[in-house]
């Protein structure tokens, strides 16, 4: 909303400099976003919050300034016009139009608006058109009541009907655009056709022109919600519509009509040849009486304000205030629909005084009535911290994804949640996996020459049965640099697996296993389901070349894992119990095996089961695949650590058990010693 300081002078002599006024208004809730010199005028651009339609005009702002500066307000005197026959107006939809005043003025001379007033309109960014049209705009900005002037001679049948539009009905509005209407919209029509979209914009064909002699001036009260919906549907807004959808003052409908009539008679001559004021229901809105008790201010603000001061502020704002014992009884003006309860009045007093002039205290935050499950609360941050310690960089990607990107990533799960009003195809779907989003990040980094990446994101996936906290991990390129080692090695499946196992293990997530599996996103034979106690919680593997090419990622392997963090958090085991440190020495025995079609994990389990409780760990030293071993066979070197809790193991005991285990492996699986 623009405020012309020259225009303001007609209503108040505030005695402040522009800067001081801007500051005071800002600190009273009318934020002056900027000020601009406009000839001999200064114009403020003010942010008016949606609860304050009464400030969308000069008088409303002047009233605020009157309260802020404690100076008197001068309201222009308006001649009261009365109804007279001569205008035919029918309201068909009384719920949508509670009041309509039509005033017929004959023998007008359409001329230019007086220069002095035209400059005020120009300061607000309006283009002067003619004395009639400019009068409607002038009064709109003076009182906040939108008005419209029809050329009465262009109205078929000489009558106005306020009714719903018919489906498919058309009107060319003042901006020369043909609009197609429907039953949800309200129109002003003559005998044949709509001549204005109620509260939004008038029709071109019945507008006042240089040759107009008879005008019908409209001042009305339309339903806010209806105007707002119609405006949105039509994609059309206007100064009038902006005010109607926020709510205009019922009482001002008449005042503004009379003011505009006065101005037209003064500036364009002519005489009132008819007037019809139709009111549906009460002529005045019933404003609430709000009691402001002596303790209310203290209770809400933590301080007191002199009731006399509050009374004066509220009166300056147009309220009727009477003292009732140690309370104030307050009736707000009809223009202030936002004042309903005691708290609203306290805010009025507080903001006029200035929030910065009120005291402050530190709140007493006592025991909070909410059980805190720190372990659960910290689960995700700790997983993140662990991955960071392992050298991973956390990323943050959008929760949405395009259908195309999802297809490119090989997604084949349940149908994702779709957005009804996406702004672009990029936000079409809520992501059911992080893969596509993360690959976009991998791709853009590789394009910028950053080829060695270890990234993760802890965020949500969105599935039709709910949103789930999820961890995505992706690695590509080489392991960290170490100049002592020369050539750096490329990361692979086991880097992702290790990172995941370490992060989960450190948080005592129990029962995580990996089961080879196939999916459209991964290379065949290079992927696994991640399970906890048999329940699938995610996937891990080498992304297929097709998927990578779809994301323009070439000549590098990319490895990805995604797991459901909520299932993982539910599998956190009990607090670790202290285990006595080993007192007796351990003995290590290595064994080199040729293995065909057997999983390491199965062999490891068999070893532990056959070790009479003295095998502490089975570690993999090396896997060999290559020419030096038969086809479909690989070499595994395993290192077994034997240790007893209660004695030093002798060579003989260890050897006997170790050989027994090896024999068991050879006897059970397709395994032989190498």
């Amino acid at each position, binding site marked *: 909303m623009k405020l012309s300081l020259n225009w303001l002078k007609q209503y108040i002599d505030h005695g402040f400099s522009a800067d001081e006024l801007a500051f005071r208004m800002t600190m009273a809730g009318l934020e002056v976003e900027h000020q601009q010199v406009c000839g001999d005028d200064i114009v403020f651009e003010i942010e008016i919050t949606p609860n304050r339609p009464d400030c969308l005009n000069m008088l409303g702002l002047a009233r605020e300034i009157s309260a802020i500066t404690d100076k008197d307000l001068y309201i222009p005197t308006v001649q009261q016009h009365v109804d007279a026959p001569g205008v035919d107006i029918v309201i068909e939809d009384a719920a949508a139009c509670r009041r309509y005043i039509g005033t017929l003025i004959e023998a007008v001379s359409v001329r230019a608006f007086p220069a002095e007033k035209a400059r005020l309109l120009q300061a607000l960014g309006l283009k002067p058109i003619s004395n009639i049209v400019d009068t409607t705009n002038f009064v709109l900005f003076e009182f906040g009541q939108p008005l419209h002037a029809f050329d009465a001679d262009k109205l078929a049948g000489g009558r106005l009907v306020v009714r719903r539009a018919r489906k498919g009905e058309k009107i060319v509005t003042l901006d020369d655009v043909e609009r197609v209407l429907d039953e949800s919209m309200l129109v002003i029509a003559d005998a044949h056709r709509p001549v204005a979209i109620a509260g939004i914009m008038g029709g071109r064909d019945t507008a006042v022109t240089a040759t107009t002699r008879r005008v019908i001036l409209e001042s009305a009260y339309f339903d806010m919600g209806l105007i707002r919906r119609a405006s949105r549907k039509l994609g059309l807004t206007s100064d009038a519509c902006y005010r109607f959808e926020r709510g205009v003052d019922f009482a001002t409908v008449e005042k503004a009509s009379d003011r505009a009539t006065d101005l037209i008679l003064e500036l364009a001559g002519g005489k009132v040849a008819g007037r019809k004021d139709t009111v549906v229901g009460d002529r005045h809105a019933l404003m609430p009486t709000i009691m402001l008790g002596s303790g209310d201010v203290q209770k809400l603000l933590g301080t007191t304000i002199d009731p006399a001061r509050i009374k004066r502020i509220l009166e300056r704002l147009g309220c009727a205030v009477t003292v009732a014992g140690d309370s104030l009884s307050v009736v707000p003006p009809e223009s202030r629909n936002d004042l309903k309860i005691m708290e609203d009045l306290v805010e009025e007093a507080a903001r006029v005084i200035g929030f910065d002039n009120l005291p402050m205290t530190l709140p007493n935050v006592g025991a909070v009535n909410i059980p805190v499950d720190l372990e659960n609360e910290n689960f995700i941050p700790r997983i993140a911290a662990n991955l960071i310690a392992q050298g991973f960089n956390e990323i943050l990607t959008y*929760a949405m994804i395009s259908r195309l990107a999802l297809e490119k990533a090989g997604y084949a799960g349940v149908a994702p949640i779709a957005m009804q009003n996406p702004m672009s195809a990029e936000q079409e779907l809520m992501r059911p996996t992080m893969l596509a989003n993360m690959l976009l990040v991998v791709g853009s980094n590789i394009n910028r020459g950053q080829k060695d990446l270890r990234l993760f994101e802890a965020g949500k996936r969105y599935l039709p049965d709910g949103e789930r906290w999820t961890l995505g991990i992706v690695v590509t390129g080489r392991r960290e640099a170490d100049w002592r080692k020369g050539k750096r090695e490329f990361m692979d499946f086991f880097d992702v697996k290790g990172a995941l196992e370490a992060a989960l293990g450190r948080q005592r997530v129990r029962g995580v296993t990996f089961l080879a599996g196939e999916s459209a996103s991964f290379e065949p034979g290079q992927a696994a389901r991640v399970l906890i106690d048999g329940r699938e919680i995610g996937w891990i593997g080498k992304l297929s070349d097709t998927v990578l090419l779809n994301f323009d990622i070439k000549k590098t392997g990319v490895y990805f894992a995604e797991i459901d963090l909520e299932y993982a958090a539910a599998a956190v085991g009990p607090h670790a119990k202290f285990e006595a440190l080993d007192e007796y020495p351990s003995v290590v025995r290595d064994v080199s095996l040729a293995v065909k079609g057997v999983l390491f994990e199965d062999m490891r389990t068999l070893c532990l089961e056959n070790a009479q409780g003295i095998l502490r760990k089975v570690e993999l030293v090396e896997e060999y695949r290559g020419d030096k071993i038969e086809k479909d066979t690989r070499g595994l070197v395993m290192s077994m650590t034997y240790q007893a809790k209660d004695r030093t193991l002798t060579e003989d005991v260890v050897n006997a058990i170790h050989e027994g285990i090896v024999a068991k492996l050879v006897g059970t699986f397709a395994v032989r010693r190498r």
Partner: protein
Amino acid sequence: MVWDVETIKRDVAAQVDAAATLDVLDAVRVKFLGKKGVVQEMYAALPAAAPADKKTLGQQANAVKVFVEELMAGRKAILSLQAKGAEAIDVTLPGVAREPGTRHLINQTLEEICDVFERMGFVIQRGPEIETEFHNFTALNIPLDHPSRDAFDTFYLDQNDPDAAGRYLLLRSHTSPGQMRVMRKHKPPLAVIIPGKVYRPDAVDASHSFMFHQIEGLLIDKNVTFADLKGLLTAFCRKFFGEDVKMRFRPHFFPFTEPSAEVDIQSDIFKGKSGKWLEILGCGMVHPKVFEHAGYPSGEYTGLAFGLGVERIAMLKHGIGDIRTFTENDLRFLKQF
């Protein structure tokens, strides 16, 4: 008679330094420390010495012995290295460590903000991102078809709202619906902060994104006042932005608080924004309508609420000019923080 120790030492030093190989050095060792060496000779002379000289002579023999041994050891270390062909390490070569990763700056900022409030007794709560019409709007006193919704343009999903016939589930457009969930689940006293992602269909540019992060705060008790709100947020701003930060509480409008304010801050630490007031959060006293929707008895409690934008604070604090930097995830950016 006593020994000319200084001369002996000079002699030893000259010969040790001159020893170019371990073999030569060993010959020097024999010459001085061997059975027929100089040191042995000094000890051998002791029994025959005059009683008055005995103490001095003994000390001299010991001193020479220690001197020779130390000199020999040092030279031997050098010659050994040379003999192995090894050189001294270049201690200025880079150290090797597994470089730790980084927390995303948005999450770092979010956690820092939460930390400040947690230390003041607030507990973290989280709410869903997919919300109902009721929690996101109705319960917060934001009616349908009202201009107060203009500030809350919203993404709707193709999922029916179980609470409202004919309406659809939506992506929360602010973290405030979390207030209602907490209030309906727990009774006061309450002191909670609710961090998380929020969504609004805004065209993406340097300062707008359709997804960003907010932190909601809520304190409800019998005697919470606007003075407490000012005190709490002032304490926060000073802890977070430094004691020198200037603040102002500017009246504003939110449908779910009354009175409502926005907080502007000014500080020299903000790159290029010195002397400018920068809006950083919205706040107010919980509106009685919100208590009503939460099912709290009328007039029993008062509460304060606030909401702040994490991206904006991170951008101000770290001098980041473009909000898109956060979601670009360029490794060079990630590693800076």
